[in-house]
């Protein structure tokens, strides 16, 4: 019980009239890499927002570090968030600051450290992602992969206990993908972080994850270690892992049957 950094019980969430989650249970252990997998549009990013307290669930409990996130006051929430880091899909670097200032920003806001110490810390973090030489560049001068690594350096600037990655590998060329995969793994080991990776890049994610959940249709359809999942005989898990175009997880957005749609159109034409 002590080792559960994050515990989600019976979580419900809607966006407008669309049901995103109906009854989700998660347990994330300290010091491990946990992957949340699932096809696009299943609300993986929404789940991260719920964990960070940026969205309120309709029902259910979200506990991070043993604290009930939806019930926290604004101040307590901000305090809690300084223990977590998030790597956003687009990097979300502050475009009006240089790379150095971006990484220094959390330190300047949350610590009373003198500027000389901040400089040392920032350089250490930038070195960890291999971009110490790029410290004076502005975010628009960086490539996508570099921006994501800078964002990673910023996310670990405060030495968080929990790091959440939102699609860290999406849209990367094989080389930067490999670099990122190694980085995530190394950071987790050397800093003793607890990591959550939200992704649909199956092979890369499973190669470094200790435990994985597969989300589909607002529910968790499978969970287990990567080896267990790959050996699973469950049809929908097979579809996702094997990358089959159609199966229990429908390729089509819910709609009336194709024939009905065509027929309805014809009738309109006649009328």
């Amino acid at each position: 019980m002590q080792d559960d950094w994050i515990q989600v019980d019976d979580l419900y969430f809607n966006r407008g009239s669309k049901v995103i989650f109906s009854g989700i249970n998660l347990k994330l252990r300290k010091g491990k890499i946990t992957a949340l997998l699932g096809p696009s549009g299943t609300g993986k990013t929404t789940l991260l927002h719920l964990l960070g307290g940026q969205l309120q669930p309709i029902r259910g409990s979200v506990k991070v570090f043993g604290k009930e996130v939806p019930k926290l006051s604004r101040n307590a929430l901000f305090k809690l968030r300084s223990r977590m880091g998030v790597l956003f899909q687009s990097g979300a670097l502050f475009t009006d600051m240089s790379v150095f200032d971006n990484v220094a920003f959390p330190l300047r806001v949350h610590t009373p450290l003198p500027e000389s110490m901040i400089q040392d810390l920032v350089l250490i973090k930038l070195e960890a992602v291999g971009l110490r030489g790029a410290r004076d560049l502005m975010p628009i001068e960086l490539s996508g992969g570099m921006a994501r690594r800078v964002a990673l350096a910023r996310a670990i600037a405060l030495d968080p206990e929990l790091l959440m990655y939102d699609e860290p590998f999406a849209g990367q060329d094989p080389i930067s993908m490999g670099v990122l995969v190694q980085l995530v793994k190394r950071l987790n080991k050397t800093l003793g972080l607890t990591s959550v990776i939200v992704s649909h890049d199956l092979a890369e994610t499973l190669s470094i994850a200790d435990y994985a959940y597969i989300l589909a249709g607002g529910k968790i359809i499978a969970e287990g270690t990567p080896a267990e999942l790959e050996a699973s005989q469950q049809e929908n898990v097979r579809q996702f892992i094997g990358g089959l175009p159609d199966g229990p997880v429908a390729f089509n957005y819910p709609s009336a049957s194709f024939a009905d749609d065509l027929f309805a159109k014809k009738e309109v034409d006649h009328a």
Partner: protein
Amino acid sequence: MRNQRWVEISVGSFMLLGFVALLFLAFKVSGLAQTSEQGSFEVQACFGDIGSLKPRSRIALAGVTVGRVGKVELDYQWLEACVTLQLNKNLIGKLSTDTAAAIQTAGLLGDNYISLTPGIDEAYLAQGDTLKDTQSALILEQLVNQFISNSTSTKE
């Protein structure tokens, strides 16, 4: 990245420009210097009819502006219009208690203003006194009406 020094300097000049502009509005445009430094004292005067006299209308003595009208209220006892006159402080001890106040019109169609005529009494007006000798506004339409009715009645 904008140069922080440049930002600070330009915002500073912006504030300065605004301040100078405010001074310009205060002194050159509204002529604040001439009226505000004198202060005022207040006396009351009640009229049977004030015409279109409004708060901030002019008060003149021998044609020179010496104050502004303050409040205009109805006296519920005598059903008269009671006006507060804000006069320049320099006039304390200069206006006798029998000073007359008349409501006059600037030109034929202009605004109403109060014209003061000093009296001969030995005592002088002080803060809060009331003027007794008052003359109501001459209303052009009434004059014309009177003139017409007079001329018709004399004919018959």
